[in-house]
C-alpha cells in the first residue's frame, strides 16, 4: 500500500484524516498512483489534475523522498521507498499569492 498525504482542503473534501492508503496494480508511477487515488476517491477528480488533459493543476505540487516530482513526466516510476510504503507521496498546495 502506498501512503499518500493530501493537502488540508482535499482531506476535508474527501473526508479523510491524515494519510490515505492506496493500492496500485502494476508499475507505480505518478499517473497510476493518481488514477488509483481518484478511483478510490472520485470527488478528487479534477482537483489535482485537469479532468480532460490530466495535466497537473498549476498550483499543485508532488513530493516524495525530499524530491520535487511535479515536473517529472507522469509515467515516471516512483521511488522504491514510496512503493514499499516506507515514505509517503505528498500532494501539496503550492505556496502562491505573495
Amino acid at each position, binding site marked *: 500500500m502506498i501512503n499518500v498525504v493530501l493537502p488540508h*482542503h482535499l482531506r476535508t473534501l474527501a*473526508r479523510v484524516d491524515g494519510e490515505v492508503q492506496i493500492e496500485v496494480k502494476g508499475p507505480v508511477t505518478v499517473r497510476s498512483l493518481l488514477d488509483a487515488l481518484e478511483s478510490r476517491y*472520485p470527488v478528487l477528480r*479534477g482537483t489535482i489534475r485537469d479532468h480532460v488533459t490530466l495535466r497537473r493543476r498549476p498550483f499543485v505540487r508532488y513530493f516524495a523522498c525530499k524530491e520535487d516530482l511535479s515536473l517529472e513526466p507522469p509515467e515516471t516510476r516512483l521511488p522504491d521507498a514510496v512503493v514499499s510504503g516506507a515514505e509517503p507521496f505528498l500532494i501539496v498546495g503550492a505556496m502562491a499569492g505573495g
Partner: protein
Amino acid sequence: MSKIRILVGTKKGAFILTGDGKRQNWEVNGPHFAGWEMYHLKGSPAEPNRIYASQTSGWFGQIIQRSDDGGKTWNPPGTKPEDLIGPGGMPKGESNMFVYEGEVGTHKFYDGSQHPWEFKRIWHIEPSLTDPDTALAGAEDAALFKTVDGGKTWKELSGLRGAKGHLWQPGAGGMGLHTILLDPNNANRIYIAISAAGAFRTDDGGKTWRPINRGLKSQYELPDPDAEVGHCVHRIAMHPSRPGVLFMQKHWDVLRTDNAGEQWQEVSGNLPTDFGFPIDVHAHEPETIYVVPIKSDSEHFPPDGKLRVYRSRTGGNEWEALTKGLPQKDCYVNVLRDAMAVDSLEPCGVYFGTTGGQVYASPDSGDTWNPVVRDLPAVYSVEVQTLP
C-alpha cells in the same frame, strides 16, 4: 410564522443565517467549506431545502455541492446516503466537471488578440423554477451549463458562445457569466449577462441566443454606439410579475428596458454616481428598485465614506438615499454584484453583504437597516429564501 434563510457566499466559506418573520434575531451557521471561495449558493424554488453551492479554489478548481436538508449537510451530487455511512464513508460524487462543448474556440483577450476559452469557476447557479433537479450555472470563462440530474453532470448550452463569442472580452474581474434570469411565464425565455460582453436572451430554451444591448453606451471603452457586444453589464434584475421589464446596473449607468431588452434607456437620474454592482427589485412593487452607488471604477467604495442604498419607487430616474442604520462615515467597503437580495414577506425585506464582511437586513423595504453579522470574510453573494 414565516422564516427567512439567508445564504451567504464569502471568500473563505459559506454561512447560513436564519431569522424569524420579524427579521430582528438571527442565528449564524457556518462556516461551511471553510477556506474555500464560495461564489454563490441558491435554493430551488421548487424544493427550498435543496440548495446548490459553487465551491472554488485557485489551487484545486471547481466543486459543486448540494444540500437536500436546507444547508445542514452537504454532498457533491451523485453521492448516495449509504456511501457516507461508517468510518470509511466518503462522498462518491464527481460533480466538478465542466467541459466546453465541441471546438473550444477563442474570445477576445485584454490585448486584443484571440485567446482560447479556459474554464475557471462557476460564478452563479440558477435552479429551475419548477424542477429541483434542473439548474443553470454561469461560468468564467463565460459559458452557460445545465444540469438535469441534480448537479451530478453538467452540459454546456453552447449556442450562447455562438452569439459573437469571439468578440467577448474579460472585464477586470474576469469574463464571468454572472446573471441568469428565468422568465416565469415562458420556460423558453432566459436572460443572462456577462462581464464584459453584455446581456443576451434566448427564446428557445437556450439553443440560440442574441445580444440585447441596444441603448447601452460606453463612450470611451466602446466608441461604436451600435456595438452589439463588449458592454460591461454588472447585473440585471427582473420582477417576476413583469418578465419583459428588466433593470440593469452597468459599469457606468443604471438602465431599464420595457421590451425584453430590445431597447434600453438610462434611468440614473439623480444618483450621486451611476457606477455600482448590484441591482434588485422590491418583491411586491415592480417599479421599486435598489442600487448601491460606488464612487468610481477606480476606487470601488461608497462616496464620502457613507454606505447608502438608493431606492427608486418610480422605476428609476428619481432616487432617494436610504441611510438609517448604515454607517455614514469612514465606510470603505464594496457591495458585489451578486450580494443583494429581497424576501417576499410583507413588508419586503432587503438584504446585502459587503466586502468588509457585513450582511445588512432591512425589514421595511429599505427604510431602516440592521447588521445581521458584522465580521464575516468578504461577502461574494447573498440569496434569501422565504420559508413557511
